[in-house]
């Protein structure tokens, strides 16, 4: 087990190393120049050169890369060109929103997707099933920002029930009641993803229901409800669990659009803005962290399979 984890971690690190090179090259292919963005309209060429030297942007790319990686290995993701602050701090600032939004969204996804998926599967072939599956497919086909804009229009601007945007930290002031700021965004973000989980749960339930061992379970006199929960659902969830993991990882970055609509200070929006500002260290740092998160979740999902599914041989 330990060996397996170590081996997988090693592989993940190799992926991370490859990813870091890709990120770096990728970032420096972006045209435009952070210097101009920073100095604005009236900068003189001398000012530009001075700043470039100060930021180390005049060195060759490999040199810059090794400086970056060297610092990353020491836990230093660099300093934002735009904010003049450590990238780690900037990421930590955005991480609360992103992680909390992803978590709340995940709760919605699990609460809505799984039970409704089970309901649809157990009512397979009826109009309930068809209705639920249809709605799920529709939800998966709606652009999130469109949902978000209309949710704001209805619940915040017209009814005034919920805040329209922004997110003050739960830890700093206002306490957990600040979670209400995340209600609309999380619903927006959850809609298509819950729909996908619903469909996955349903399909997976239907597939498992056809398995021989379900027939065995019924043949040994177990009540139908227990057959569903213990034999069908449990095995069906095996397929869904990995989807949970990847959905969570994706939520962090796919939330960009939602974060923009709801003006949330998350890391997705930060990347987009940093791209527009050519704030290389921030883009690099955030993407590296997101990739890292993805790999960690990937690893956790794989390890969890070891516990969920005894058939899995750890290769």
């Amino acid at each position, binding site marked *: 087990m330990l060996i397996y984890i170590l081996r997988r971690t090693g592989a993940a690190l190799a992926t991370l190393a490859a990813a870091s090179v890709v990120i770096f090259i990728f970032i420096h292919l972006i045209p435009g120049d952070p210097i101009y963005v920073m100095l604005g309209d009236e900068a003189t060429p001398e000012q530009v050169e001075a700043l470039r030297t100060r930021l180390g942007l005049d060195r060759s790319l490999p040199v810059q890369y090794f400086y970056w990686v060297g610092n990353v290995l020491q836990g230093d993701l660099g300093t934002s060109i735009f904010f003049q602050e450590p990238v780690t701090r900037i990421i930590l600032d955005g991480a609360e929103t992103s992680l909390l939004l992803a978590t709340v969204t995940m709760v919605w996804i699990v609460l809505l997707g799984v039970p409704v998926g089970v309901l649809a599967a157990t009512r397979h072939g009826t109009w309930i099933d068809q209705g639920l599956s249809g709605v799920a497919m529709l939800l998966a086909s709606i652009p999130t920002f469109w949902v978000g804009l209309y949710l704001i229009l209805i619940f915040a601007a017209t009814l005034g029930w919920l805040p329209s945007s922004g997110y003050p930290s739960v830890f700093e002031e206002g306490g957990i009641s600040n979670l209400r700021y995340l209600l609309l965004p999380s619903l927006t973000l959850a809609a298509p993803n819950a729909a996908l989980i619903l469909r996955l749960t349903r399909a997976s339930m239907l597939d498992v229901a056809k398995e021989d061992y379900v027939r*065995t379970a019924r043949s040994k006199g177990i009540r139908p409800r227990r057959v569903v929960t213990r034999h069908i659902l449990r095995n069906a969830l095996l397929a869904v669990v990995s989807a949970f993991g990847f959905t969570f990882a994706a939520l962090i970055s796919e939330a960009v659009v939602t974060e923009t609509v709801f003006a949330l200070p998350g890391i997705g929006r930060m990347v987009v803005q940093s791209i527009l500002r050519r704030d290389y260290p921030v883009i690099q740092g955030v993407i590296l962290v997101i990739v890292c998160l993805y790999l960690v979740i990937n690893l956790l999902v794989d390890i969890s399979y070891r516990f969920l599914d005894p058939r899995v041989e750890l290769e």
Partner: protein
Amino acid sequence: MLSVRNLVVSGGKGSAQIDIVSDVSFEIERGKVLGLVGESGSGKSITSLAVMGLLPHPQLWVRGGSIELDGADITEEPPYLRVERGHGGVAMIFQEPMTSLNPVLPIGEQIVEAVRVHDGSTGVTARNRAQELLDMVRIPDARLQLNAYPHELSGGMRQRVMIAIALACRPQALIADEPTTALDVTVQLQVLSLIRELCDTFDMGVLFITHDLGVVSELADSVAVMYGGKIVETGPVERLFNTPLHPYTAGLMGCVPDPSAGHRRFQTIPGQAPKPGEITHGCRFAPRCSHAQAICSDDAPTRVTEGARHFAECHFPISRGA
């Protein structure tokens, strides 16, 4: 004890509705093995699922006839009520020991599950009972094996676990649907021997479904031969094999290779088995039958009897004339 009368199982929708199993009747007696033989598509497995109440809904359903256990009609009952009855119900074991056990639960738990339902015991008592059952099906190191997962066992062992689960239901009738087809011959022999033994010990009635005439011959007390969704011949094992009445039974026996027979050509039955619904009147075997005459494809054959309990549905039964 368990009797099936005029069972009709149908499938398909609207005008495409067809009978997969038509007018099947048989009885299972305590301590006896009834072998149900037939080639693939003959409807033998569908019959067994119908008895157990496990027909895949809504593709297949029982259109007519009745299934009675101890005189009570269970045709409409959900499967769990068929298993759970005062003096023992029906239990079943399946063909594929590989896929018939839940892969993510230890086998002990899967047995305990059945024990809980049927004995009402829980905890250590149920676990002890599970171990007892494993001993009964002669799985070595039963206590250790309770924690094993299905994929850690060989095919033969898995089938023994399936039998243990069935025994946990304390059934008076056991349906075995090709339980040894996926096993090697040396293992098959042992599993068959176990079934025979349990049948005798618990005075269980067994419905043993197989395509292998050899297996039926060695295991069963009486035999029913299915063809095209119908039982074409039924009788005590020695009578049926010594003096088959139906040309299909005889033909089938001829096709079976025999290692002691030496190098020779195989006897064959020309053509191939009809698909369900393909032949609706007359004798279903007529197109392949060497004895067939005009009447065979027009009129449904009548039942002929050769001594007690040996029947066949044929216009021109062979052993009688010959």
